[in-house]
């Protein structure tokens, strides 16, 4: 799933507010999340509002499930 980061909540692990096709999603990152940018692994501190990201393991993140407990995101790619 592709989305745009709207906000980065600084709990630990981080929580993100994402915009996916105009729908707002709240997701957790795993404490050991792997963040990748241009094939290089970077720290989750790189994540910023405005980044386009791809959640590699988010099949359950349909827009109607945003209020339910979801598994944390373990892999995420920054697209731009």
């Amino acid at each position, binding site marked *: 799933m592709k989305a745009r980061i709207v906000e980065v909540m600084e*709990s630990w692990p981080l929580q993100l507010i994402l915009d996916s096709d105009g729908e707002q999603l*709240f997701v957790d990152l795993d404490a050991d999340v792997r963040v990748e940018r241009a094939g290089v692994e970077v720290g989750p501190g790189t994540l*910023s509002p405005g980044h386009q990201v791809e959640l590699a393991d988010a099949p359950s993140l349909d827009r109607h499930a945003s209020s339910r407990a979801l598994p944390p995101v373990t892999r995420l790619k920054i697209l731009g």
Partner: protein
Amino acid sequence: MVKHQSVSRTAITRTRVLARRKTVDTPMSSDGSEVGDLGGDDPNDLVEDCFDVATHGGGSLESVPGFGIDRAMTEGFGPESEEVTEELANLTASCLMEFEEPESVCGRDDRRRISPASAIPWWMICQLFIQRHDGRTSRCTGWFIGPRTVMTAGHCVYSQSAGGWARSITVVPGMDDSSRPFGTQVGTTFRSVSGWIQNRDVGYDYGAIILSNGDLGRRVGWFGFAALSDDSLRNLPVNNSGYPADKPTGTQWSNAGRITRVTARRLYYMLDTAGGQSGSPTWRSRRAVRHAIGVHAYGGCPNKSTRITRTVDDNMMRWKNVT
């Protein structure tokens, strides 16, 4: 329902109007006795005093050994406020730079560890260990605003992604590595507002933990807080301290700088923060009088606090005086 309507995990009916001491247009000291020449206050500021359990020297920024106050006072402002050297002109904007380890560290990481954290104001700040609604664990920061009341971010007490209120939160004031100098207390009663719980509006991302008694709060004291006007907040030197997860667990780290942008419900700054610092206080320190003016909640450079507005202040007063 208005967005600032207080929402609690446990139903508590308030039947009386709580007495409160607030001042408008009158600067006040921590003991309530001083009406001094604290010039620059705006007539629209609303201030609630702190409760210090000891005296402490003060200044515009908290005094932390090794901390570069000059840089803190200028970070986040455009080059027009500085001499523009060739080197400075060619610098990459700090928010465009990447730093692998720390979260939301804007430019050079100039956080300073507070150790021990058993002095004012650091001991009023708490590491929070959270058992979330979904059973997972997380960490945040909180700070006492009353004997039973620990202020924090709304998403620390009510996680949208976890699907509800936290099950419990362990509060550890002044934690320093493995040291818990004042002990701990576990809270299971929480507060936030409908703007966060129902509307999911980041401008309303604040909440509180209500402890079962005031034993811990009376030992460490509590922060005052203030709803300052836009004019008072613009460029204001502020402090922040909390428990970032990119540092050893249970260690408190402080940073300071100026507010760079003020909106109706949020404060923006380039103070360095990290995951785990959600809920930490952003405060003004003037002549040993400290007033929190925001609840840190968001990263991404600029980092952001939920602003303590008059309606936020009203709710904090209600939560502070919970009976």
